[in-house]
């Protein structure tokens, strides 16, 4: 696995530029993911890689295409200091793992080997040996994630038919 590390305010326009929103299928979105700030991302990313961002990750446009593009690229999760709220909702709603943990962001460098235990929120930097505890999700949100997304969760609860 590889780490892709970016700075603060990674906006959804750079995660997936608007010029590609006319083709919202997963393959197309993945092929242009991050290209305006990291031209090599789409050609080098592999299943299991982790994106590490600074504060306000996913700010700007509400496009769900952004977490969809990262998920379709094979990204295992995003670890950031904080998330913009619509990106946060969208990731939970599509069952894409995100972890808020400022200490982990500061303690992970590109090239490190990192493992994540989603059940406990523990992030381990295997290169340095450091362990970090991400903020836990409230039970309600855990329910959405465990059901595989918002719509599946609503179906499971019998709210949506």
């Amino acid at each position, binding site marked *: 696995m590889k780490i892709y590390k970016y700075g*603060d*305010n990674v*906006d959804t*326009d*750079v995660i997936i*530029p*608007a*010029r590609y*929103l*006319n*083709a*919202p299928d997963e393959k197309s979105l993945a092929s242009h993911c991050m290209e*305006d*700030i990291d031209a090599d991302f789409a050609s080098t990313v592999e299943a299991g890689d982790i994106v590490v961002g600074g*504060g*306000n990750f996913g*700010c*700007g*446009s*509400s*496009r*769900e*295409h952004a977490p*969809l593009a990262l998920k379709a690229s094979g990204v295992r999760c995003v670890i950031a200091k*904080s998330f*913009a*709220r*619509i990106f946060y*909702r*969208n990731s939970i*709603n*599509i069952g894409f793992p995100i972890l808020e943990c400022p200490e982990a962001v500061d303690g992970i460098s590109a090239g490190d080997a990192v493992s994540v235990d989603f059940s406990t929120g523990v992030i381990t930097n295997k290169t340095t040996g450091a362990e970090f505890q991400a903020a836990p999700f*409230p039970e*309600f*949100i855990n329910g*959405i994630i465990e059901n595989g*997304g*918002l*719509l*599946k969760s*609503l*179906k499971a609860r019998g*709210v*949506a*038919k």
Partner: protein
Amino acid sequence: MGMTMTQKILARSAGLDRVEPGRLIEGKLDLVLGNDITTPVAITEFNKAGLSSVFDKDKIAIVLDHSTPCKDIKSAQLCAACREFAGEHSITHFYDVGRMGIEHALVPEKGLAAPGEVIVGADSHTCTYGALGAFSTGVGSTDMAAGMATGTLWFKVPSAIKVNLVGRLGKYVSGKDVILHLIGMIGVDGALYHSLEFVGEGVASLEMDDRFTICNMAIEAGGKNGIFPVDAKTIAYLKGRVDREWQSFEADPDAEYAREITIDLSALRPTVAFPHLPSNTRTVDEAAGKPIQQVVIGSCTNGRLKDLREAAAILKGRKVADGVRCIVIPATQQIYLDAMAEGLVADFINAGAVVSTPTCGPCLGGHMGVLSDNEWAISTTNRNFVGRMGPTSSMIILASPAVAAASAVTGVVTDPASL
């Protein structure tokens, strides 16, 4: 501890007497909104989940505004999917080319937003309707699908930042300058997960179009929503547009705020934001002289009648500078008609500007004004991110209609008062 305006609206939507910041609630929705980019993804999710019907065909609005009139085959196919879904579910408020406008100008104009209502839209600038005392916020496509199916959605109750407005705006200073100044002060994540609640004696002097602009860009400070109290101007705006009952909410005197900020409207200068963040603000005095090649006047932020009047007042009898392209986009068909009736459209065309049908086009680098390499634009839109309006080397300065129009005349960033 008392509640803020937003907390009161959310409590009512969840059937609760009171809520506290951080609490997760499920609230009833008064309107679910989507556009031609986000609705197709919502439709896919809706169908994939095997959902069969919408909760209320009168409480869903689908507006084809982003890539319309369609810029390419793929966009046309997305619009066709929206059209088909709207037909299949008999969606009352479906706005296609010829009737559509930019959604956040159109929804209030058509009376689809009222004080105290809870509105979600699969578009980040849905926060605009806080100008009417509604709770409105941007969500994603899966949220839109869930909202259309169930009429409810989960929310985390936000804490609020109280923005106390005092004084009144001077000449050539508008709502855009207020919100850019605020974002410059608190940063693009300064209101993350928070409401921005605008109160104070300065509110009364702000026109509705200025309040729409201010709430529209709450998201650019990371805000969940922006909201104004309801006053005589709000009620005058609602008259003839909203005939259903509505309820307005004021914050309790002992409501708790995460932060309080005071802005003296009288002291504000025209303000612009340089690349690549809306928080990278400078006064027009600091920015004056920077050459630009394109001017865009329009968008959900600044495509309303007051915006066009302010731009036309500067362009009337003047000419767009050689080497500058000036694109004016009335946000709705009604605004277009009003601008024609007032002679504003003729003023723009005589000055050498182009006037377009309503569309979000250039704001997101879609069509109707995409930039080329290394070009600089001054734009009344809301985002100046890397690559937003063109290649990554293109640059955007965010500004008010008055500053954008003055800059069109000179070809450099210009204080309207200096013309």
